[in-house]
């Protein structure tokens, strides 16, 4: 059973629907005990980074940290990926999980002398896909996925794929059982469904 964490950051309907479509059993929850027992955990989320403050209030941060430590596969989507970092300049007072170092930052207003529109909305390509990524197994470089966001995570050794927009940013991050995607796999057609299928079919 996959625990899909509901922290009132947007609509979970699409994520749950897509997970079920690729064969997962899901449980939408705010209960740390349910998260602790789950085979896998998905943290979706759209909107403001500050919404993740509720995870701490509901003691879900600790539950996730413990679950990750014992090896439970975790997938953060969009703001759910950003939460895996130390934080975001969008809400400097709100701590992330610190599974990955550094902060998420806003897209620059200009890039290479040209104005850069933000939010970054639409279909963009996955590049530099790490060969050992389990989450992105079978995904070809250049495959398109759907984005809608204004903040982005920095590129590091844990980056599993990048996307170019105002320079490269982390499209997917993966270290062991901790994974995240900045794009919306539930809205990214066959490519996105393959990513979710890879996660659902991971051996625990």
């Amino acid at each position, binding site marked *: 059973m996959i625990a899909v964490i509901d922290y009132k*950051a*947007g*609509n979970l*309907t*699409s994520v749950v*629907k*897509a997970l079920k*479509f690729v064969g997962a059993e899901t449980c939408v929850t705010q209960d740390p005990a349910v998260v602790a027992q789950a085979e896998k955990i998905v943290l979706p989320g*759209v*909107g403001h980074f500050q919404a993740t403050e509720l995870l701490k209030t509901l003691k879900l941060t600790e539950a996730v940290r413990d679950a990750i430590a014992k090896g439970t596969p975790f997938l953060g989507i969009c703001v759910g990926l950003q939460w895996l970092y130390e934080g975001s300049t969008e809400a400097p007072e709100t701590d992330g999980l610190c599974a990955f170092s550094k902060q998420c930052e806003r897209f620059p207003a200009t890039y290479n002398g040209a104005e850069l*529109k*933000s*939010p*970054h*909305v*639409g*279909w*963009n*390509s996955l590049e530099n896909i790490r060969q050992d990524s389990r989450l992105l197994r079978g995904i070809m470089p250049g495959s*398109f996925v*759907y984005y*809608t*966001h204004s903040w982005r995570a920095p590129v590091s050794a844990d980056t599993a794929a990048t996307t*170019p*927009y105002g320079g490269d940013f982390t499209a997917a991050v993966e270290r062991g059982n901790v994974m995240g995607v900045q794009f919306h796999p*539930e*809205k*990214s*057609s*066959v*490519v*996105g*469904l393959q990513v979710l299928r890879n996660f659902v079919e991971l051996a625990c």
Partner: protein
Amino acid sequence: MLTKRIIACLDVRGGRVVKGIQFVDIIDAGDPAELAHRHAAAGADEIVLLDITATHEGRGTLIDTVQRTARTLFVPFTVGGGIRSADDAAAVFDAGADKVSINSSAVARPELIGEIGSSFGAQAVIVAIDARRAANSNDPVRDAEVFVSGGRMPTGRKVLDWAREAEDRGAGEILLTSMDTDGMRNGFDCALTAMVSEAVQIPVIASGGAGTAQHFVDVFSHGANGGKADAALAASIFHFGVTDSRVLKEELQRAGIPMRLPC
């Protein structure tokens, strides 16, 4: 590279698509769920479903239609028509929509933009603007006016001001329909689209006037006379020679417009 989006629009009345999208000369073009899936498979980047009756009695049918359409649709899905409150929007989101498009109701009560955005995120709110050039102005484009109620009622508001206000209030995207070019098949209003696109940071979806693939090239172009649009709505073009999104996108790709081609 970020691609330009082709958005397939389905006009729905009483649970049926009423404007033919993929077939010539068909008034009742079929089942919304089936057509949405066909468009997605052919490479449409998003699907918009507009309830063109939007009557109180029709809401139940609409929710049912949205549910059936969303069930196995895995591209962004927008629903518009008759959404007057945050509760109306919530019902549509619960049924599986990813975004709502609001028009007259947002002009009447601009707070609605923020109300929906605060619960569902700015990315979920598209403000649709029906625009007409100001015929008697020295600068008909800059002074273009917002119309509501399906284009029947002038508001006295300038498109430029309203687009900026919508952005400030938290709209995620602007869907800009030119009433001057709509249905004419002579091309989008590129000057109007470029003006709005330059005035706001959020994406602008161009609508109205598509007749050929070249019209899409023009509205996506960032050149001097280009529309600088981030996305374009395709509806009636599929009546006239271009059979589906795949064919359209291949033509645009050849013309140098970045496109997501379906696998």
